């Protein structure tokens, strides 16, 4: 249980769902962590669990919409841990619930989804990759979705944002070739999370993956080289179970 011993990870949207599961999985594997989210109380609860797992943790209430908060999170992490080895861009905005068709979509809400799901990951990755390049080491994992590649009615802004995030990841991966810094987009699959319940209230939870299981794919991707730029979490877990 020490695949990430000594590594410093920054996980956004870490107060619940996949972000929480990834933070706890990283902590169990020996990482030091910064976690951030908008909700202070939920975030503090996760921080307490991370500490209980024996990991050093910095919990920062932050809204990734705000560039000042992004700088604050990155700078405070670098001050505390002196470097960032792993960034998980997990914070994500689904859009207005229930999800409207694009034809009915409030334009401000559309912009907001792109702000949280594309612009914020860009800013965070840029701030973090800049210092990774000096050390020629590091990995960025962007949380993508099946909706990035398939058009589902109602998933408009979210779909567009995740497709853009995939594009961001693809171009950036090409630019980072040979630098020692990696960037990936991971489709976690359908999970039993608050976000998924909001998007699809009728889904049967027994058909859905548990975030804690999916988080193992993030541990694997953070700790071992992987040739694919975009991948499904499931494929990593299958490889492991066959190994």
């Amino acid at each position, binding site marked *: 249980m020490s695949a990430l011993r000594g590594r410093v990870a920054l996980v956004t949207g870490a107060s619940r769902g996949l972000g929480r599961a990834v933070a706890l999985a990283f902590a169990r594997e020996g990482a030091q962590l910064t976690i951030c989210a908008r909700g202070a109380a939920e975030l503090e609860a996760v921080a307490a669990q991370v500490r209980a797992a024996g990991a050093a943790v910095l919990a920062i209430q932050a809204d990734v919409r705000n*560039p*000042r908060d992004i*700088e*604050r999170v990155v*700078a*405070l992490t*670098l*001050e505390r841990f*002196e*470097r960032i080895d792993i960034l998980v861009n997990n914070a994500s905005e689904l859009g207005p619930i229930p999800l409207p068709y694009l034809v009915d979509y409030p334009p401000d809400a559309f912009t907001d989804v792109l702000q949280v799901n594309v612009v914020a990951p860009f800013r965070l990755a840029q701030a973090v990759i*800049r*210092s990774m*390049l*000096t050390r020629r080491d590091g990995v960025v994992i962007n949380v993508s979705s099946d909706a990035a590649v398939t058009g589902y009615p109602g998933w408009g802004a979210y779909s567009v944002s995740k497709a853009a995030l995939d594009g961001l990841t693809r171009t950036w991966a090409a630019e980072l070739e040979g*630098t020692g810094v990696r960037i990936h987009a991971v489709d976690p699959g359908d999970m039993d999370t608050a976000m998924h319940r909001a998007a699809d209230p009728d889904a049967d939870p027994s058909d859905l993956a548990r975030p804690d299981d999916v988080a193992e794919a993030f541990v694997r991707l953070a700790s071992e080289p992987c040739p694919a730029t975009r991948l499904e979490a499931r494929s990593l877990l299958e490889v492991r179970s066959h190994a």
Partner: protein
Amino acid sequence: MPEVAGWKLPPELRARQPPEQRGVRRDHVRLMVINRAGGSIGHTRFDRIGDFLEVGDLLVLNSSRTLPAALPARRQDGSPIQLRPSVRRGPQWDALAVQPIPPHANVPLAAGERLAVAGTQATVEGRRPDIPLLWRIRLDEDGLDRLLAAGEPIRYSYVPGPIPLEYYQTVYATHPGSAEAPSAGLAFSWELLLRLQARGVGIADIVLHTGLSSFQDDAFDAEHHMYEEWFEVSTQAAAAVARAQRVIAVGTTGVRALETAADRHGHVRALRGWTDLKVSPARRPRVVDALLTGFHEPQASHFELLEAFVDRDLLRRAYAEAIDRRYLWHEFGDMTLIV
């Protein structure tokens, strides 16, 4: 510049905004090259800096991250002031206290008074004895979080409007702590740095957290007071310097850090701490072979350091040419390479 009487920078040569806001890529600013051996002065574009570097050369970057170091505060009588911490030791700051609006004149505080500072409180302990314009201030909690939450980048009068903090960051900025941008590195892009690395130029980084370049008092500034700045030279940086053919400091901050960490024979060891070393013709560099720097006005103590590298006449000629050729000055301006 040596004698400054009568030297005037035409005001329009002060860069008013970052290159990107002028429609110029950060690595497409202009580069003046002063060649000491030949006594010659050349002119090119920054992204062609590789033409003057060789395999085995080492660029030493200052990876200090710029803080939004102008922090709004309020006195007990309700009047607003701005604090500019120059030296930070956790919650203990040595800070300038100025009016919140231009021309940001110094505000005399009182020992023992309490200040409201961005959601926390602070106590003024008194003036710093050697630099009386700096106030010893103790915050009730960690000041770094407060600065990041509420500060703005320090901006001087030649920059007319607010500029987002990211324009004050080098592309390799890592460790937070500089009161003002370590600006000699602002022209590097990672695209350029990766290309130089691929051609055999090495890169190492040191940390030196810059203090304030002005105490908002012309007479006091003219006296060139030196005070301590935090620096760190890592084991890896020291080893890279030992292997290098030529050591090129990016910025005078890199010179200070490396020269502080050098012994009298010019061997650099890993070292961290506070430095108030003044490199000048009287204390010439022992480690640094070449220097990349921006253009700053001659009253800046900067020039004494340049004179440690370049003789007076050549430096004077170079700066006269730079003005003739309309080079831009200050943190968002053009660059000089001294080889």
